[in-house]
């Protein structure tokens, strides 16, 4: 095969690989207990929300990004996004405290970083 042809095929493969849809899985568990290690707020972050059942059914949901104030919490090394209606619990977080949490059924994707987060409700089991 001609050298230029080989390069072309390689490029096509590379392009196809790059086109593969990004994973929508998010780290962490759906519910449990975790020790608060860190928490922070990021205002006006472009995020897309999608249902966790879509990823379980291996569907490819359409991601619609919009700006929101995101509240992150790191529990035992995993960073979660805190449910938007759970701000009072977020503000009451104590470093080192062990808290129960459960997923609200959504995952979130941050547009700028491509990171996915599990969305959780704090102090709920």
């Amino acid at each position, binding site marked *: 095969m001609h050298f230029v042809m080989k390069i072309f095929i390689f490029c096509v493969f590379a392009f196809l690989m790059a086109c593969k849809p990004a994973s929508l899985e998010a780290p962490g568990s759906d519910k449990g207990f975790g020790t608060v*290690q860190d928490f922070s*707020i990021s205002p006006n972050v472009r995020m897309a929300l999608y249902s966790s059942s879509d990823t379980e059914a291996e569907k490819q949901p359409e991601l619609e990004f919009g700006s929101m104030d995101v509240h992150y919490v790191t529990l035992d090394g995993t960073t979660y996004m805190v449910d938007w209606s759970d701000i009072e619990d977020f503000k009451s977080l104590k*470093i080192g405290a062990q808290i129960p949490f459960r997923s609200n059924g959504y995952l979130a994707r941050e547009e700028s970083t491509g990171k996915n987060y599990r969305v959780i409700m704090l102090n709920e089991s």
Partner: protein
Amino acid sequence: MNLKFCLLGLLVLSACGPSKEEIYQEANAHFAKTEYKESLPLYEQLLIKDANNINLYPKLTIAYGMTGDWAKCVQYSEDALQKGQDLYEVYSVSALCYERLNQWEKAKTAYQVGMKKYPDQQTFHIRAGLLFFTQADYETSSQIFKKWADIRPQDLDINYNAAVSLEKSNQSDAAELYYRRILAIKPEHANASFGLGSVFEQKKQPALAIGFYEKALKSNPEHLSALLNLARLQETKQPQVALKSWQKYLVMAKETKQPESFIKKAESRIQALKGRG
């Protein structure tokens, strides 16, 4: 020409350095691992590089609080609150930092505002109660402890703090209630019996007071305050019994190296009672 090269070099070098996001992530990684000392220079750096990052002020408050730099802790807590970061941790850590700096009024304000904003944070409220108590603001400390004692009626420590604060703020009836609650759970609680003795003294009921001081001594024979008060009350009607109590008190006070004034008082009472006999 050389200056241009230098500037270009600096530009290239600065472009090669870590971005503000990378620094923030590194600082947060240290913070999450409780490596607060390591996180501090990074957060401080970000105050210039990422001035709009509202998380820096609570993080700096907590990290300086955890590393014992009380002055910087309160400085950043004020910035955090000014920027609307009214998180529980900011109140909690800053109140502690004000305490460490002996800035009692500011500590009290941090507790008062924090308690209003976070009415469910028991530990924070109890800390506040203790501060108000040590600052002799018994009215406020009794309100705090009473509230939590009613929420946690089985918690002996909180009920005891409530009872003592109420007694100190001259609310004898309420104090009696909480001391009795403790004795209902733990009849051998010597301090609660002593407290009741003291309450009945306030109420001018010496016979009942004597009974509770005796009960306290039964639970804890080395309860010096109970023995002192008992000896004092016995003097009126039972001088010979009082003499024995004072003698016992004197021995124990010397053994446990009590202040000289207490020892002298016991000696003088013994002398006086012997004179009566």
